[in-house]
């Protein structure tokens, strides 16, 4: 869906009027650019929403920019509401496992976003740097899209980590680094890698280290596969894990699989260079 600038300018003019409270006839280029981005963002939101099944509205086969913008703006508001509901659902049981970045981003940052987000004049600005690195890249997204994706990712991580004993999570994090509380790292990824490591080594998932036999088994398993087949094997292991421990929660499985590509390469390198302890809690 594309509109001519002439079709968008009246919407920007209207926004400028609202922004200045009709007390200023002019605005700076910078502000005008911001308002134009706001209009384009809302139109984009409408388009994304339309893909999900909302019927395209058109008069004489051509969508009306003003109407599309209004519907996009409503979509932004609805997304904010839905994200807030999801956040409120996650936060009472939220565990940050002593990781300061995780805590600051989710517990301190997200409420500030809801407080200061400006869906009318700057919906494209999500205000936060979202420092905690979730497994899905959220940096290409803007505004409520970025925050919504981030909160969804964290909620999935909480489901994943929540079913594991805290003792085990702390065990693998401590093995990863004694400074795990101060590092900007993805906790779910580290824990998942250890669980898969145990499965590949044929050992139980617990806080006890690997025996030499289990370590050998793991090494053989990795050496038998190239990176691609190893990734496929691991995807299968993730599916098994999701089926057995998480009631087949497909969304969580897809989320965790986002880390496997990197993991395969790292694991192969670690085996090759005999430094598996840099990845797994040996």
């Amino acid at each position, binding site marked *: 869906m594309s509109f001519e600038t002439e079709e968008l300018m009246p919407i920007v*003019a*209207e926004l400028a009027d609202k922004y200045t409270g009709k*007390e200023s006839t002019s*605005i700076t*280029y910078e502000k005008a650019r911001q308002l134009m981005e706001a209009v384009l963002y809302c139109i984009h939101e409408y388009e994304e929403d339309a893909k999900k099944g909302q019927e395209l509205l058109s008069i004489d086969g051509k969508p009306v920019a003003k109407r599309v913008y209004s519907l996009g703006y409503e979509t932004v508001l609805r997304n904010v509401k839905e994200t807030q509901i999801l956040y409120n659902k996650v936060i009472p049981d939220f565990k940050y496992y002593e990781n300061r970045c995780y805590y600051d981003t989710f517990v301190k940052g997200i409420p500030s976003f809801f407080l200061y987000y400006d869906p009318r004049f700057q919906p494209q600005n999500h205000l936060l740097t979202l420092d905690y690195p979730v497994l899905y890249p959220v940096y290409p997204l803007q505004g409520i899209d970025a925050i919504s994706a981030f909160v969804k990712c964290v909620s999935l991580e909480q489901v994943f980590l929540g079913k594991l004993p805290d003792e085990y999570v702390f065990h693998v994090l401590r093995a990863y680094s004694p400074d795990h509380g101060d590092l900007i790292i993805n906790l779910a990824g580290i824990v998942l890698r250890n669980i898969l490591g145990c499965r590949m080594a044929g050992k139980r998932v617990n806080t006890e280290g690997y025996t030499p036999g289990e370590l050998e088994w793991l090494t053989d398993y990795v050496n038998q596969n190239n990176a691609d087949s190893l990734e496929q094997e691991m995807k299968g292991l993730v599916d098994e894990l999701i089926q057995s421990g998480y009631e087949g929660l497909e969304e969580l499985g897809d989320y965790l699989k986002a880390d496997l590509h990197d993991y395969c390469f790292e694991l192969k390198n670690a085996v090759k260079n005999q430094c598996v302890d840099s990845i797994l809690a040996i």
Partner: protein
Amino acid sequence: MDDGKWLQTANDGFQIARVKEANDYTKKFGLVLTDDEASLLIGERKDALKEQERVEFGEGILPKLIFAFCDSPYIYQDNYVDSLGRLQDMFYLYKNESLDEITDDELIEFMKNQFDGPCQGSLDHLEDTGLEAFARRIRSGSDLYEEEDDEF
């Protein structure tokens, strides 16, 4: 503002007509703008906006400036167009300099008070001292109408 109104007000002809409408009021002060003078001022408005990197969607600031300054004892027919052009340039410049923290009406009111008061009709004095100090006070978050002893 509906689509039609926006397009209408962005039109040069409309702007000139609005400026000329002010003649009905200003002629009692002996001030009148011809078509050419109105066009010239509208052209200068575009240049000023471009120079100050600002966008104007409505009918422009010129009619407001005309109504505010037409009763000034320092403005007469001979310097009317030049003064309006300078005032218009100054207005956009100091909207930027004050970081858009004040409304159009507040800025015009201050300009008028300074022009008729301490500046005694000197546009140079208004621009270089009165408005400069005013913008500085706005940027520092001081009271809008607080006087600075060392300024005048």
